[in-house]
């Protein structure tokens, strides 16, 4: 129960931190912000790795679900960061 309270605390504080941070992002960068946060929400990749690599030969279903999750999350991570980088490079001022 104590762990749950700690995790909830972490959740709420991160929400507030997120709101503080994101309100400072200028409208010009809202599209890269969205694709960038797509990439960040690919953090589920961590959970997917744990599921796909559980190594329990008797539980193929878990492995397959983990594999699906891992594929989707990796598309998010790789696709999200690459396309964000592509966009942001265009915003760089030509000196």
């Amino acid at each position, binding site marked *: 129960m104590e762990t749950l309270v700690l995790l909830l605390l*972490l959740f709420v504080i991160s929400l507030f931190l997120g709101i503080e*941070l994101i309100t400072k992002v200028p409208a010009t960068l809202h599209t890269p912000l969205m694709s960038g946060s797509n990439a960040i*929400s690919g*953090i589920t990749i961590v*959970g997917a790795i744990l599921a796909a690599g559980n*190594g329990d030969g008797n539980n193929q279903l878990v492995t397959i679900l983990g594999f699906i999750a891992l594929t989707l999350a990796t598309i*998010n991570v790789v696709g999200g*960061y690459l396309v964000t980088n592509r966009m942001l490079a265009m915003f760089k001022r030509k000196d």
Partner: protein
Amino acid sequence: MNESFLDLAYLVAAALFILGIKGLTRPRTAVRGNMLSASGMLLAVVVTLLDKNVLSYEWIIGGIALGGILGAILATRIQMTAIPQMVALLNGFGGGASLAVAVANYFQGGFNTETGIITLIAIGTTVLIGAVTLTGSMVAFGKLQEIISGQSIGFPGMKLVNAVLLATAIYAIVMVIINPTDASWVYVLIATASILGLFLVLPIGGADMPVVIALLNSYSGIAAASAGFIMGNTVLIVTGSLVGASGIILTRIMCVAMNRSLFNVLFGVMAEGGETIDADEVYEGKVKSTSPDEVAMMLETARRVVIIPGYGMAMAQAQHAVREMANAIEEMGANVEYAIHPVAGRMPGHMNVLLAEAEVPYDKLVEMDRINPTFDQTDIAIVIGANDVTNPMAREDKGSPIYGMPILNVDKAKTVIVVKRSLSPGFAGLPNPLFAMDNTLMLFGDGKQAVVEITQALKEAR
């Protein structure tokens, strides 16, 4: 690997994500911010691979290779005009990944009575939000890609059906908690949540897509955070809630910019339009058209020109042509700026990305609140593919369905040029009195073609 070392590494990764988003607060630091965020992700992945619970690697390598290749192809091939579709798709994949992780955790089983309830609640919540995000995003993608009609799709009593679906899903979560060994309730939950996702987005019209994408973005983050509660994984919780907050803020900005409540957007409610306005009455005998040569002649003597781009510019892929026209105008000695309405385009910031692609410096892209006071000192305002966001009825006509929506005060400029195919209405389905004003000239035709012809005329005049 040592448990606390793992947690420390996750903490560092979370800090890198936060610094990454902080980098996005300025265009100059944004690329570095994205790199920091990506290195945080790499760190999180590497330490997870070293986790003692990871016993076999073949499926992991396969998944990362497949996802990596697909992601890289998607990111490098996608056209900038299609970014809204890509973001919608990625939102869906994020939700789908969290959904699959939750279901996998369910089938791994081994719930003891002590921590079991919390884990089961988290699994239920993640399945619900993940499935809604997955199917809802697929509908949003279909609408943006124009596979599905952009019109509101629905049937009488849809709200009631949605309420029943949600109640059933929550009941299924309760049943999963009470009796974790009976998998059938998990299937019921997945099915109802998936249908709910479809039904929630189908009634939402094309004009409201920026709100929907932002909201689904938020859901995908919250699904990841919720998945974090299943495994007690701190980095998932921190990161997921950051993304959740980001989506919520963007959703609010979009709603404010359209003067619509989130409730009305979500349930496809349009404001009641007092008396219907007859387009013929607004336009009859008052619309004047012009030619590219005439526009070029006026531009020669202008000192300040403002360009107002809208989704029509994206549709015509005219951003590069617009940039060239702006160059030609500047060579004539005028000052050119771009007025960006928050909901111009199909997602937050869409116009900015398109113009950045065409190498327009970002300091020339001016937000609504800053550019509006300058329109009465503007010689020529050129509207390209924008409609509802310039409609003066939103400011003046209390009976209008869009009354109260913040608009660009284009009509205050000395001369307004509207580049448009016809007098057809925008998403709101309303006539635009701007087109019939004394100081407005219509340049009928394809956006890109018209802009190219103006540019040619300007160059010949030199």
